[in-house]
């Protein structure tokens, strides 16, 4: 996936576009992450100003939710389900395999910036696990062999 490099004026526009929504903080944070791939901490005072809330409050929201990254992700994001239904068909072995092959732990990015690995607790694909989202595309029956095949397909 491609994201904009961090740019305060783009961030300003994104914030302004969502600022009038009820409970605007979450939609703003999602839109920022969609634009830049992560939530740069520089946005905290910007959002606080626009919504007339304290910086502490915005900071608290950014850090509460697992979704919001503090660093740009790799060029591909692989989210592997860690929840029970996937555990029953080998999700733990899959996760161990993925970490070993990529040489990273959860939330890590490979040294070449190619892949970020993230845990997720259930994708609603629980009847055909192990499940994953690869760059937002849902994947079923994601065993270690399927992981290797998929990884080879992910371009640079």
């Amino acid at each position: 996936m491609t994201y904009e490099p961090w740019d305060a004026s783009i961030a300003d526009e994104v914030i302004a576009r969502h600022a009038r929504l009820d409970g605007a903080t979450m939609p703003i944070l999602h839109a920022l992450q969609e634009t830049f791939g992560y939530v740069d901490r520089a946005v905290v005072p910007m959002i606080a100003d626009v919504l007339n809330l304290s910086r502490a409050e915005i900071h608290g929201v950014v850090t509460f939710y697992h979704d919001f990254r503090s660093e740009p992700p790799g060029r591909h994001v692989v989210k592997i389900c860690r929840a029970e239904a996937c555990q029953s068909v080998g999700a733990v072995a899959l996760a161990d395999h993925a970490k070993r092959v990529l040489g990273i732990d959860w939330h890590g990015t490979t040294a070449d910036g190619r892949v970020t690995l993230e845990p997720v607790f259930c994708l609603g694909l629980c009847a055909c696990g192990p499940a994953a989202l690869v760059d937002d595309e849902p994947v079923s029956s994601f065993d270690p062999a399927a992981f290797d095949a998929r990884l080879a397909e992910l371009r640079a």
Partner: protein
Amino acid sequence: MTRIFIPKDAQAVALGADRVAREVERVAATTGQTIAITRTGSRGLFWLEPTIEIETAEGRIAYGPVKPGDVEALLEAGMLSGAAHPLRIGRPEEVSYLARQTRLTFARVGIVDPMSAQDYVAHGGYAGLTRALELGGTGIIDEVKASGLRGRGGAGFPTGIKWSTVGLAEADQKYVVCNADEGDSGTFADRMLMEGDPFCLIEGMTIAGVAVGATKGFIYIRSEYPHAFRAMNDAIAAATQAGYLGPSVMGSGHAFTLETRLGAGAYICGEETSLLDSLEGKRGMVRAKPPLPAIKGLFGKPTIVNNVLSLATVPWIMANGAAAYADFGMGRSRGTLPFQLAGNVRRGGLVELAFGTTLREMIEWYGGGTRSGRPLRAVQVGGPLGAYFPDELLDTPLDYEAFAAKNGLLGHGGIVVFDDTVDLAAQARFAFEFCATESCGKCTPCRIGSTRGVETIDRIVAGIEPARNLEIVRDLCEVMTDGSLCAMGGLTPVPVLSALAHFPEDFQRAPTLMAAE
């Protein structure tokens, strides 16, 4: 021109439905066959996905599971006229897995075009709202009460009673909030409904709005469901365009508008008060009750918070009558529940049935046993806060009270099957770990107790003072049960204690060591 139906449901897509649809387009174009593909929801028979359904004179004829590489041969064999082929399933309604179900909430899922308000109406949509508008506020609420509908999000609270509290509250603004956070492992019914029949949820929320005098609704959808989020946004736009949402719903003079919001990967935001804080743009901290959300909810206003399935069942009740719905079920569990068969099971999918079927029938008859072919050892029902049941408890009927009597819970109807390779000590440890990760942090027993639970189970598994540490686990569970503000901390002991009660041998695998220094 032949009409073809291929699911767009995320599970079907994960199994290759998009690639199959593209291949059908391509091959049909090269052979000059004129087709029109409608992307539907899934019927929920996932081992047959991706399916292709063809409209024929004898009704729809299904083929599946189809791989892209099968498409040429299928078209060559005459699939477009419903011809024979090894992948031919026949009429989907006659597949016994589906024929034996009672599809009320899911009546249209897998059949209608989820993008089309017109198709929704052609399949009986908006008959419920039409009748609701005739009944008016208290009439609707009486009908929902009489149906016996209980909240499908997990707690099983009577929906009609919640609505009447909001209806009686005086306020300049009221809200209807749909809980589409569906965080429980093993559940996907909310997702399937939103992707496959989004207008049904819109209609249900509109009826709720008319019933209590709320003019604005929000659907809080977990971020793990990008497909459902898009489907709901598209359907809301279409419903607004067609006058089913807006300043005067169906020309009735009732205003009702809808917006969606995305969660951000926090399980606790499925808890209704945490969800409301999150909707308000805050951290998802659980609020103390009272005040109930029905009195002081979103932005401090009276608010209905209901699960997707609770709301999406209301149109059926309105259109067919409360008595027709209450005719299904057992005891105090009336109507049907869309159960979800998941995990290590051969035929996973969506099984909507009246309450009262046994867990065994569900797993053996519908599920066909384990996918691995190994013996079944444990079943977790009701998500991460639900109990692990051994084979001896499989004859328990699927009913709120029957499950409570066995120290379990039905929750949102997720059924997760494990074979004999499962280690229940590891599952108990995971329950604590999950609670530690997902706790909102407000109460000490939940926040600290869960972390101590992980450490203590690690010691037991390592054989360090097992008897004493088992005692500590039980004490922790007691403190968490009694001292937690919400069911996250309060029910985490359920999977832990059920693992201990039914599978004690898994906690005694290691040779006992001397106490660590």
